[in-house]
């Protein structure tokens, strides 16, 4: 649910990083936080973490500059990926405008990725949103592991598991090093802002 503030000329959108536990959602936000100019980002809010596991959510507000006179403000959220935090995950999704689905390439996480995508679809449906109509980008993270002996899924397998019907843009990423992180962010921001603009006939946007 975007907020369009006509008096301040601001558009606020909510983008949620979704995906199974430990796939690298928080790592994406941390990289963006550290790489962005302080002028264009707010405080990163990380609450209730236990070790490095997210228990509630992370939030990073960004200022993406002006488009046709409107200030574009984006709030990035991550959900807690672990299965037991289903209720919290759903709460964070409330009012979402765009989604990054982060997939873990570990072969042992194959089913977890698929379950997480189904969980996303179901939670959106409960909010009367349809995944097929949402701005959505896939991120295949931890590509560095492909060069190690750890059994990983190939891009073709990930595409087949997750993106066969959705057919969305995907990005390969190594979030700890930042590879693919801004490419993902740019694409989802573009799609999200575009959708909001079209919906509200802000033809100027």
């Amino acid at each position: 649910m975007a907020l369009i503030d006509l008096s301040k000329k601001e558009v606020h959108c909510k983008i949620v990083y979704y995906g199974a536990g430990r796939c690298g959602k928080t790592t994406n936000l941390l990289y963006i936080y550290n790489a962005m100019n302080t002028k264009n980002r707010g405080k990163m809010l990380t609450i209730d973490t236990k070790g490095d596991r997210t228990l509630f959510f992370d939030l990073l507000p960004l200022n993406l500059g002006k488009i046709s006179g409107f200030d574009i403000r984006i709030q990035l959220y991550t959900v807690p990926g672990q299965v037991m935090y289903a209720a919290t995950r759903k709460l964070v999704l409330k009012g979402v405008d765009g989604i990054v689905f982060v997939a873990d390439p570990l072969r042992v996480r194959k089913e977890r990725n698929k379950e997480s995508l189904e969980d996303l679809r179901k939670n959106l449906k409960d909010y009367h949103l349809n995944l097929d109509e949402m701005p959505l980008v896939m991120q295949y993270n931890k590509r560095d592991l492909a060069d190690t002996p750890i059994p990983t899924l190939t891009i073709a397998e990930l595409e087949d598991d997750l993106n066969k019907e959705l057919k969305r843009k995907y990005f390969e990423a190594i979030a700890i090093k930042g590879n693919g992180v801004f490419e993902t962010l740019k694409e989802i921001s573009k799609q999200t802002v575009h959708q909001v603009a079209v919906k509200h006939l802000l033809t100027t946007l």
Partner: protein
Amino acid sequence: MPDFVLTSSMLEKSKNILVNSLINAGVRTVLLIDSAGNILVNLGQTADEIDAISLAALAAANLGATAQIAKLIGEDDFTLLFHKGKNGNINFGRIGNDLILITIFGEDVSLGLVRCRITDISESLRIIFEG
């Protein structure tokens, strides 16, 4: 949940109501947010003193969680949510279906007064934003 288009007239009308009834009664900060955590109106203490974005996100999540807790024990929702501190108190109230009014005030203002005022203005606020 549809997108929210905030116009200058909505902002002016609601600001008038909130200043007259709450800020003039001594309430330090008033934030009106939606349940996704977006800030619609921010009055009182300036943004530098309070991290309003974080506050709004946490408040929205907090009320969402509270509603879930209510359901678990067979209630629809809890109508009041209040935290008391040493120097300040914070009260959360729902306005209509999708808005949350956050008030922060000190010991000099009574919770009873704040709640009465909020009850008085709830309906006018709801009409401004939800029609």
